[in-house]
Structures are given as structure tokens and as C-alpha cells.
């Protein structure tokens, strides 16, 4: 079953996870195929693919992953690489239905990725980050994010293809990290209609115990602020239950269809 109004990007096929790195090394097709299918079954709309841990050998490994995932199901991919050459090669295989993770306002990265994104008319994650680094205050983040969106749109990228990522920082090293992210999400949501807002959910809890609890709680708060896409592990049942419930509570679930369907599929029992 699928939640309709929140875009779910399944993060499991990432080479920084040891079992995935091993599967890639051993070219274990069955393993990657299972990882793909399990995530799709759990409700993922995009399958994130990352082979960055292979550093200089990123491309040959990512190519194999892409082909394996594409053979396993027909979900669009999220190409997780910041190397423009790798992104270009990847899009040549999977085309315009893909999402690119990610572009930023860093001059070099922006100018090298923009033509590729434009050529394939694909979706793109846009990080609130420029050559000065990651702003730590909401004003800075909102400023960088807004300039980035404006520059992308000015250069022919459709607003609905843009997924702004506020780059959530750890609350363990700065108690305001949660608030800063929420304010950024709220303001970007207010300023740009049609533009999506996405984030990962694990940074927020870095350095603290019971991380999943904090990640889930943050997800719900971020959704209330305007987050409408999320990169996480869709096999995390509790997280998924929170996501579905929050969607319903935000008025995005007509006749509570998703919520009830999730109940019937035993997705709300955690």
C-alpha cells in the first residue's frame, strides 16, 4: 500500500551500510533485489541508491546497483551521489523519472549539476548549503534555500521538481537544531508553493540514546511544519505508522483511507 501525499524515499541501499557494501562487492543480485522489493512493499516511492563508500570506484558499483534495482521493480530511483559525472552516467541509464540527491548552492556543484538536471528534466534534492557552509541560524538557511530555489527555477527547473533539504543538524551539539530545522521548513513551505521539502531523519538524534523515538517525534513535527517528502527506512514499522497517522491528522488523507488501509494491513500495530 502507498501513502499518497508524502513522498517516501527508501534509504536502505546505501553503501555506508555494511550488509549493502558486502552485497555490492559480491554482486549479490538476490540481496539487492530483496532490498528493493521490501522497500517498495513497505510503501517507498523512490529507491535511494548509493555506492559512495567505494570512493574512486563509485561508478562501476553504482551502475551495477542501478541495473539490479531497475530489474527488481519499476520504482523510480534516487541517485545519491554528488559527483556530476556519476550523476550524468546514472541518468543516462534511468532517465527523467529519477531524483538526483543532491545539488546545493555551492558554486561548482551548482553549475556542474544544473545542465544535467535540466537535460533530463528530473527531480532534484536541493541542500541548504553554499560555499560558506551550512548556516546554523534559520535566517541563513532560509536565505540559502530561497536563493537556491530561485536560481533553479530561473534556470528552467520546475518548482515541483525541487525538493529542498534544510540539512537537519544534531540536537545533541546544539539544543536549537530542531527548532532551526522546523522554522526553515515552515518558511520555505510558505514562500514557495509547489516546491517540496525533504529531509533525512537520523541526524537530529546523533549522539543520543533511543534515537528512533527522537527521529519519529521529529518526523511528525517536521510534517506539521510542511515537510512532504522524507528519506528513511520504510521497513521501520513504527516510523511508518507515525508517518501515516500524521498524514491523516494533517488533512491529507481523504476519508482517512490511508489510515484505515494501514490498519487493515496491520501497519499500525507497533
Amino acid at each position: 500500500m502507498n501513502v499518497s501525499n508524502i513522498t517516501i524515499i527508501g534509504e536502505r541501499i546505501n553503501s555506508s551500510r555494511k550488509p549493502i557494501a558486502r552485497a555490492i562487492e559480491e554482486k549479490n543480485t538476490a540481496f539487492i533485489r530483496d532490498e528493493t522489493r521490501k522497500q517498495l512493499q513497505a510503501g517507498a516511492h523512490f529507491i535511494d541508491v548509493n555506492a559512495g563508500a567505494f570512493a574512486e570506484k563509485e561508478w562501476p558499483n553504482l551502475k551495477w546497483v542501478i541495473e539490479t534495482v531497475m530489474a527488481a521493480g519499476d520504482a523510480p530511483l534516487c541517485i545519491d551521489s554528488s559527483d556530476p559525472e556519476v550523476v550524468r552516467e546514472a541518468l543516462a541509464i534511468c532517465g527523467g523519472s529519477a531524483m538526483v540527491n543532491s545539488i546545493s548552492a555551492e558554486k561548482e556543484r551548482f553549475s556542474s549539476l544544473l545542465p544535467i538536471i535540466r537535460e533530463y528534466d528530473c527531480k532534484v534534492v536541493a541542500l541548504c548549503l553554499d560555499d560558506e557552509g551550512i548556516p546554523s541560524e534559520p535566517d541563513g538557511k532560509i536565505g540559502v534555500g530561497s536563493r537556491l530555489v530561485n536560481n533553479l527555477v530561473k534556470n528552467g527547473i520546475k518548482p515541483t521538481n525541487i525538493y529542498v533539504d534544510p540539512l537537519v543538524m544534531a540536537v545533541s551539539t546544539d539544543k536549537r537544531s530542531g527548532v532551526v530545522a522546523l522554522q526553515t521548513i515552515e518558511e520555505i513551505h510558505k514562500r514557495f508553493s509547489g516546491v517540496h521539502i525533504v529531509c533525512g531523519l537520523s541526524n537530529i538524534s546523533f549522539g543520543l540514546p533511543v534515537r528512533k523515538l527522537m527521529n519519529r517525534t521529529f518526523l511528525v513535527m517536521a510534517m506539521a511544519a510542511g515537510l512532504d517528502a522524507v528519506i528513511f527506512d520504510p521497513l521501520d514499522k513504527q516510523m511508518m505508522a507515525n508517518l501515516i497517522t500524521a498524514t491523516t491528522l494533517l488533512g491529507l488523507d481523504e476519508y482517512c483511507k490511508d489510515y484505515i488501509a494501514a490498519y487493515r494491513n496491520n501497519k499500525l500495530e507497533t
Partner: protein
Amino acid sequence: MSDLKRLSDALQKGDVKTVNALTTQALRTGFSPQQILNEGLIAGMDVIGVRFKANEIFLPEVLVVARAMHVGLNILKPKLVETGAKPVAKVLLGTVKADLHDIGKNLVGMMLQGAGFEVIDLGIDVPYARFVDAVKSNNAQIIAMSALLSTTMPHMRATIEAIHKAGLANKVRILVGGAPVTQRYADEIGAHGFAPDAASAVDKARELVGAF
């Protein structure tokens, strides 16, 4: 309880006031600054390192301890200079080119300082040449560099190559770390040590100093 044991305990609690008072008092009582550092502050930080590694305490708690440690260190520093006490070793610290993630790096820096190392923090996004120049100008024995992204890891290799090219390979030991970094990658790029976490970085750094 001995005075220095009390200092170590206050440090572990992150009790800034007591660390301040006990450090000052210990100096007045006649303890050498080196002894206060070793048996008070370093002893306390060692316990914190072990407990952090074992997930008994968490990052914000370590940061509270770090604040207290800096208070103690700031009192001792001028005295240590006066008595000519030498740091364990000089460490150059930084995240590699293009990497902006400094939580782990700062933690390592703090733990190293707590263990008696002199830490020269080059900051984030450190170009190859800055590492090379810093080795020359500071006469440092260790470079500790981190990369938190798989995409910035290749800059570790390039930094090490730059060190070799500058003819400094025998002068300095290189320690690497960061979430995507593995022992295997460290070996592959010719680093002398790999540490999976901040407490291990201190152990590794001590080992590398011993190897000179």
C-alpha cells in the same frame, strides 16, 4: 579522597565551579601542574572516554565535561609553560577538503586535549596544502583527519599523497576517522591508524606516538 581524585570526579560531573576551585587549590597545595593534569584532568577524561565508548554517557554529557576540562586546562596552561612541561605530542586536526562535518572532529580534539596532547585545530574543509604547511611550521607528530562523507573520503588519499610529495612522510603519523571510513580504506590509502570513535582516537594517537 585525595585532592586530585576529587578533581577528577568533579571533572567527570562537568562541575565547572569545583574544577576551577580544586585546580587552583591543588596548585596552591604544591602539586606540580603536570601531576594535576595527569592525575586530575586526564584521569577524569579517560573515564569519560571509556564510558562514552560504552554508551553509558552521551554526547551532550561529554560536552558538559569538555567545558569543565577547558576551565581546568586554562588554569594549568601558563603553569605548564613555566615549568617547561611537554605535551604528549602535537596533533594537527581537521576535516578534509570539502567536508564540513565537525562534531566528530571537535570531539576527538577535546578528547586528545584531555589526554595531554597539544591540539592544533585547522578547522573544516582543510586544503591539502594547509595540512602540509602546518606539519612544517608546527613540527607536529600526528595528523588526525576526518571525512564524514563517502564523497569526501578521496580527499584523505590526496592529502596523504601531498604529505608524501612534500617529503614529510617520515616526519608525521596519520590518523583517519569518520563514519564511512574503515580500517581497510585506511590501509589502502596508507594511513598509519584508523579510529572508529573519539575515545579510540586517543588510544590510537598514544600508540602512534610510541611508534616514533
